[in-house]
């Protein structure tokens, strides 16, 4: 493998890894606040892309994206308020099935609103063939947009969780919901907020990736599965470990192309998921003791 | 030789020594109680014996056989039955069905035989039912046989759990706080019941907070504190043990 090819694979991997990581962080935020895996997470990404594309003809790009992110956040909040909030002590099975149902309904609604056609946002800078040379490889500037936006989101989230009081309260809910209630924190609002937050970052990821990957009503499912794989890989609930795991999976997938037929690329991710589930369910980076600490 | 022998049992959770170097034996046909303040490691000890937890080190011998590290169902098959501190009945099943599950080890119909309803499985089924009803009668809850178990009153649920454990025909019965949440009257009934179980030839090991119950029925008492064995003696001697009084009652 030449150095050039190596870098090319690496960038392809990082681009995808960054997107997987964002989806996985979305999973983790909701999981931490509620203990629910939101199977509709991928749909947020789809909605972000679809709404911004729809808005583009009537407003500038940045405004379309902002509005799309906002609307998706509202959608996320509505999902939580209408379907999750009022259930008392639902079983895990029930929650899994409900979020799967929500994912299907969202997808089907998108199909009937936007049709089956494939759309995309224009490239933020330059056009489809413009590239920048990096270490001998040629990269579309949009790739840098994706990586940059994902990086910024991760940093932003970190700042939010570590330094703001709302972020601290959300972490408290994740660590011990009962105790958070006893401190006077409205945990239900925190849950709604977690849905909004993960809808928002999902939508933003959906916007920046749209020029590269296009958006269609059914892209959510595939992304959700990859995102979940990454979330497990990093250790469920460990939002920032998802970044490492996402990049790892993305790069692994990119390089797998050089040895295996492309059609098996997705099967690889899922095989990894199964192996992790069987042998290291607490994740690659998470440790058993840290997981234990959480429930102390 | 004692029926159950625990030697140098050790269990660590992270940095916490929940059970620390505990050894004692339970003689065949006796009632032995484990007492100690909250957090002393009594339930952990129970879970180690019953196989729900694996010990960090140490040995549990039952009938001369090393059972440490075996799965709970294997330990149950050796003849150790148990009840739980916070009653664990099978929901969506009647009281009778709960007890019938207890006969699991005393019956043998497998998947194929069950699917085909072989004549002998029907006969076996009938025996399971009769035996289970007998146990419900013994515990005086046969009137609720067809009531969903989890909708019964607290004391009755406890009785169903007892019956389920007895259906196993165990040689050793582990009772985790059998009198928790019961009033004086009910506690007295439980104590009679435990004595009756012993008279059936079943050895009993129990964890209990209710001192009156423990003092009344136990042949021997083990006191745990911070995972360690503090004392092991007959009730009267435990009552006189100043160290026990200090730890257990605070000053």
């Amino acid at each position: 493998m030449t150095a050039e090819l190596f870098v090319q694979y690496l960038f392809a991997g990082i681009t995808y890894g960054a997107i997987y990581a964002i989806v996985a962080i979305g999973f983790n935020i909701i999981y931490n606040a509620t203990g629910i895996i939101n199977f509709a997470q991928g749909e947020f990404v789809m909605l972000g892309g679809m709404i911004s594309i729809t808005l583009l003809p009537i407003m500038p790009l940045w405004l379309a994206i902002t509005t799309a992110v906002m609307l998706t956040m509202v959608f996320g909040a509505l999902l939580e308020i209408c379907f999750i909030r009022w259930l008392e002590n639902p079983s895990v099975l029930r929650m899994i099935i409900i979020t799967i149902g929500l994912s299907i309904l969202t997808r089907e609604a998108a199909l009937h609103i936007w049709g089956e056609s494939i759309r995309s946002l224009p490239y933020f800078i330059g056009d489809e063939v413009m590239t920048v040379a990096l270490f001998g490889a040629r990269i579309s500037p949009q790739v840098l947009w994706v990586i940059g936006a994902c990086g910024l989101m991760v940093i932003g989230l970190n700042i939010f969780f570590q330094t703001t009081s709302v972020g601290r309260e959300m972490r408290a809910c994740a660590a011990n919901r009962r105790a958070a209630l006893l401190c006077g924190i409205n945990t239900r609002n925190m849950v709604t907020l977690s849905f909004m937050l993960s809808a928002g970052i999902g939508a933003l990821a959906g916007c920046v990736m749209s020029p590269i990957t296009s958006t269609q009503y059914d892209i959510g499912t595939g992304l959700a599965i990859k995102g979940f794989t990454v979330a497990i890989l990093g250790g469920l609930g460990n939002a920032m470990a998802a970044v490492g795991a996402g990049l790892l999976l993305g790069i692994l997938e990119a390089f797998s192309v050089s040895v295996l037929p492309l059609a098996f690329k997705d099967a690889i991710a899922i095989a990894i998921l199964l192996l992790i589930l069987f042998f290291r369910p607490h994740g690659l980076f998470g440790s058993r003791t840290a997981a234990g600490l959480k429930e102390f | 030789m004692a029926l159950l022998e625990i030697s140098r049992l050790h269990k660590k959770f992270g940095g916490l020594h929940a059970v620390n170097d505990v050894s004692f034996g339970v003689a065949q046909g006796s009632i032995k109680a484990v007492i100690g303040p909250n957090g002393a490691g009594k339930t952990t000890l129970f879970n180690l014996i019953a196989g729900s937890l694996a010990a960090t080190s140490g040995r549990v011998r039952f009938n001369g056989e090393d059972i440490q590290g075996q799965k709970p169902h294997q330990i149950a098959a050796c003849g150790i039955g148990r009840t739980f501190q916070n009653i664990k009945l099978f929901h969506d099943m009647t009281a009778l069905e709960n007890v019938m599950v207890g006969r699991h080890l005393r019956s043998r119909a497998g998947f194929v035989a069950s699917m085909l309803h072989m004549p002998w499985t029907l006969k076996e089924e009938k025996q399971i039912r009769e035996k289970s009803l007998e146990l419900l009668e013994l515990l005086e809850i046969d009137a609720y046989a067809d009531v969903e178990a989890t909708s019964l009153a607290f004391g009755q649920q406890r009785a169903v759990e007892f019956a389920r454990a007895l259906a196993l025909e165990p040689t050793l019965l582990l009772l985790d706080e059998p009198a928790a949440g019961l009033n004086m009257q009910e506690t007295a009934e439980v104590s009679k019941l435990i004595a009756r179980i012993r008279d059936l030839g079943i050895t009993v090991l129990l964890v209990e907070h209710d001192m009156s119950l423990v003092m009344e029925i136990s042949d021997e008492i083990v006191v745990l504190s911070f995972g360690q064995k503090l004392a092991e003696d007959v009730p009267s001697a435990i009552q006189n043990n100043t160290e026990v009084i200090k730890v257990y009652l605070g000053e």
Partner: protein
Amino acid sequence: MKKLFPLAVLATLIIAIQLITGWTDTRFYLTQLTMSAYYALLIIGLCVVMGYAGQLSLGHAGFFAIGGYVSAALTTRNLEGLKDTVLIRLFDGLGLLVAGQDIYGDSLLVVTPWAACLAAVLCAGVIAWVLGIPVLKLKGHYLAMATLGFGIIIYRIVLASEVFGEADGISDVPSFPLLPGLSVSGDFGAREENYYIAWGLLIIGLVLLRNLVDSRVGRALRSIHGSEEAAEATGVDTARFKLQVFVISAVYAAVAGVFLTHYNGGIGPSEAGVMKSVRYVAIVAVGGMAHLWGAMVMGIVLNFLSLRGVFGSYDDAVFGFILIAIMLFAPNGILSWNWRGYGAMLLRRGRRRESLREKTDGLA
């Protein structure tokens, strides 16, 4: 006798439907009823795993596809080129192979349907067994994801393998002669017999599961659902029982897959899709999780409607909606809920509690 009553009703109904359709010249309904019966076979198998043993499986379409695809591949794959290898000769000697002609008139050597069917079911059973050992140790989300992952892998394999026809699936699967004069095929002339084959199979499957649920093993399975820890303490080898019931339901799914594939004369990758697995779960949920009859009836009704295209372009949306509505408002299933009527149920509960209290007070 009491147990036979509902079965007798069912049998009467099956015969009645056939007679009525024959009489009113609407025999075409039997086509979808036959197909629905096969799907219902899978669904009752899933019902026992989900409702009784409490283990969610989001990958059951995978087992259906294994059954269908293996049987289809074996009965259509031409072994003519391998004729001289030892293995093929051995198979031929055992009567497992049958010669024929393909559509272009070339000579064809394929596995007989019986052998293919057995191989397919065995294959599904073994895969379920190997998969079940690690997967069934998982719980909650992990279990859901692992089974979903399995389903997706099967889907991917089917799509990427030349043997399985990639995106086109396998066509021209021959009919499956069960007995002389009785074969599983989609020919217009064989409709009545196939209707009875499918329903006969479903009834046998239902009786077997009914027996299973109503036995020592069934109680053990329900106890696992109730409290795995207590079940273990009562001596139930939960790991083994979960595994065995998982394998049995995989076998049910595979049998359904084999028969439907021969009936349809082919199979496509959509049968392995995630939406199919989700749909099966939805049907079991509507039927009332631990309710074999409910699952079967809903399996028939919903598949029948779907196969007739009643839901049009909203097919998937309908099942998504069903999932949410059921889980939000009637997690115990629509049938048990509807029939009793909430009021009646509350009344009865109230009375029961009161009588209990009297008894309890008497004791104290």
